[in-house]
């Protein structure tokens, strides 16, 4: 029993100590604040219902509170004394003397005086209701209201009778971590809704209180301890969501429409077809499984004409190989000039001369040449004649045949050129800018006899007859080695071996009076059919 009582007494004592300590903290903090803010020598404030007046210790350190006398009077009544106490402030290392009047008269003028050793030190007249120094508000609460950018703030007023309707509050709020805050003032009411806040943000809120100044006046209380609140995240406006979905749907439909209408074009751009030569050789890869000999034998006549026709239509860097044609038989205004072999070599190696291309696109000249070639074939003895031509294009003649025939072929091939060049003279050489397909003489390989292209006055090309083989060397890399040959020669195809299409420009010195060197061009390897 005694143990229980002693425990209870201990608890009560601890509570009282805590209360006094808390109150003491409030008291000391208020004193410290007024020491800074109040300019009067004797500073007074009302805490609760008690009036406290205090003053600072003077310069001399040996002051004792017994030296001081505090008196007060009001409404012409006699002066009444008040006990003086001292307090050492830990924060500012200062000592103050104070007097606390318990339940002083309000709404009456008080006259207070401080005397030291009988002499008046300080004097002041004041109304107690004008110096209220309230404690901070209690139970500050910050809650989310559920609405975007809003917080509900509520608190309880300090416990003070008769004055609840004379309070004014100041609410300060700031984003956590930020020093920039806003202040809202509210009268009498102890709750406030903060508006216009950022969504999904943590806020700090403080509150303080003061008498409104009509019936009661006083100092601002200390700020409460900060309380945190989080604003709700922003709601997606349903209208915006609908609009976004609608626009997205429209964009999808548009892109789908574009894709469906242009899918072939897009496919071609993104995934281009790998060019194959199949369309040039109908049935070669499907029927004859790539056996060109068979295919050739089956498709001899029509294929030639067709391929020739196709090649004439070929636009990309056509390098037409003419059969050996003696153009001198007609004695026309054809003129052929020979370029230095080096140019020929370069042109052959390039294979995509734009000049060649341009010239190839002139069908009238092709027709004229065809006619010439036809005529020449019909009159082989006219090969010895040559005519000087202004040339712009290059004709490369592939001569297919046995080795033993090569000399003859060479002779046949070179003769027209030789003849041409002997009659051409130097003037043509200087004016012509076209390339000269140099002759190629190589044993066991396809030979090329090149002739300059010509520029015809009437811009006509001779038609290409079935007896003449042309090879337009296109970029596809497929090259066919044709030679101007009759059907008898075609029969000999099977006897020739497969060769890679190495073009080697070799100029026999005895054939060419003014080219005394071998020129080897850059060879191009093209897989060609077996001859």
């Amino acid at each position, binding site marked *: 029993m005694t143990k229980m009582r002693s425990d209870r007494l201990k608890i009560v004592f601890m509570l009282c100590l805590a209360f006094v300590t808390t109150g003491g903290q409030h008291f000391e903090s208020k004193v410290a604040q007024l020491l800074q803010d109040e300019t009067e020598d004797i500073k007074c404030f009302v805490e609760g219902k008690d009036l406290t007046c205090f003053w600072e210790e003077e310069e001399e350190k040996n002051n004792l509170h017994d030296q001081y006398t505090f008196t007060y009077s009001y*409404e012409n009544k006699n002066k009444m004394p008040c006990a003086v106490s001292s307090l050492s402030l830990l924060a500012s290392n200062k000592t103050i003397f104070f007097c606390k009047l318990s339940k002083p008269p309000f709404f009456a003028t008080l006259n207070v005086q401080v005397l030291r050793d009988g002499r008046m030190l300080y004097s002041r007249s004041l109304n107690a209701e004008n110096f209220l120094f309230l404690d901070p508000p209690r139970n500050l609460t910050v809650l989310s209201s559920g609405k975007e950018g809003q917080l509900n703030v509520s608190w309880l007023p300090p416990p003070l009778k008769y004055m609840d309707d004379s309070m004014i509050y100041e609410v300060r709020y700031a984003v956590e971590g930020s020093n920039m805050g806003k202040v809202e003032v509210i009268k009498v009411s102890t709750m406030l809704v903060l508006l216009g806040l950022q969504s999904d943000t943590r806020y700090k809120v403080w509150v303080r209180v003061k008498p409104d100044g*009509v019936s009661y006046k006083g100092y601002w209380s200390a700020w409460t301890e900060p309380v945190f609140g989080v604003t709700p995240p922003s709601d997606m406006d349903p209208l915006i969501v609908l609009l976004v979905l609608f626009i997205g749907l429209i964009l999808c439909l548009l892109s789908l429409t574009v894709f469906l209408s242009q899918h072939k074009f897009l496919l071609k751009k993104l995934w281009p077809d790998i060019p194959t030569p199949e369309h040039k050789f109908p049935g070669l890869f499907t029927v004859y499984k790539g056996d060109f000999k068979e295919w050739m034998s089956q498709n001899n006549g029509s294929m030639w004409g067709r391929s020739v026709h196709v090649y004439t239509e070929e636009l990309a860097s056509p390098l037409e190989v003419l059969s050996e044609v003696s153009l001198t038989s007609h004695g026309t205004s054809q003129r052929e000039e020979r370029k230095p072999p080096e140019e020929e070599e370069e042109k052959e190696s390039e294979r995509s001369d734009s000049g060649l291309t341009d010239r190839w696109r002139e069908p009238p000249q092709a027709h004229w040449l065809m006619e010439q070639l036809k005529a020449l074939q019909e009159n082989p003895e006219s090969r010895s004649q040559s005519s000087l031509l202004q040339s712009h294009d290059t004709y490369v003649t592939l001569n297919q045949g046995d080795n033993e025939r090569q000399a003859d072929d060479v002779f046949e091939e070179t003769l027209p050129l030789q003849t041409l060049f002997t009659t051409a003279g130097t003037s043509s050489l200087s004016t012509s800018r076209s390339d000269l397909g140099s002759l190629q003489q190589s044993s066991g390989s396809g030979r090329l006899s090149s002739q300059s292209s010509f520029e015809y006055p009437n811009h006509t090309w001779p038609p290409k007859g079935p007896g003449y083989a042309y090879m337009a060397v296109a970029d596809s890399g497929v090259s066919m080695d044709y030679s101007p040959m009759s059907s008898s020669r075609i029969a000999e195809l099977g006897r020739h071996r497969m060769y890679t299409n190495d073009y080697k420009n070799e100029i026999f010195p005895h054939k060419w009076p003014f080219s005394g060197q071998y020129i080897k061009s850059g060879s191009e390897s093209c897989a060609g059919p077996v001859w």
Partner: protein
Amino acid sequence: MQTFSGLVSVLMVFVWLGGNQVSPLRPICDLRVLDHFVREARDSEVIMRGCRGGCGVMKPYLVPLTSVDFAVWEHIDVHGQAVEVWIGLSLLDQALSNAMKTVSNSPLANALDNNISNIHSLGHILHSLDLQQARSTVLPDDSAPASTQTQEVSSLSELLQVQSSFLRGKVRLLLSAAPACQRQNS
């Protein structure tokens, strides 16, 4: 003599107020009305402080006591409080009227006239709160409280200060604790 004159003036005020019987009023419980009167009383003090000439003469004025001891006040019943308020208002009305006769300064005279009107309005408010009935029961039996409830001031500025303190103190406490207003709130 002074006590007797004070008592007579109080009686006259009561008769005057009794003569002005009006129909029962709706209770006026909004203290912002009283706050308005308090501000105008403070304005008079400010004008008085800035007055230079024609600001009245030095003469004694009988005014009520304004000090409030909450511990004592809470022990007085509402009727006793009402009596104190009624007496104080009547004394102030008389004093202000006497003072205005000696004031030639126009702004100050206007301010004093406002204050007198406000005191009359407060009478109506107390009437609406049904607090005037107490006077007839209390006053004949207790004349002594009149002397203890008054004081004398010697200047207009002191008179205005008393008016301000009286309105903010006793009158406000009475109105905030008026039973008619408590019945409305509950």
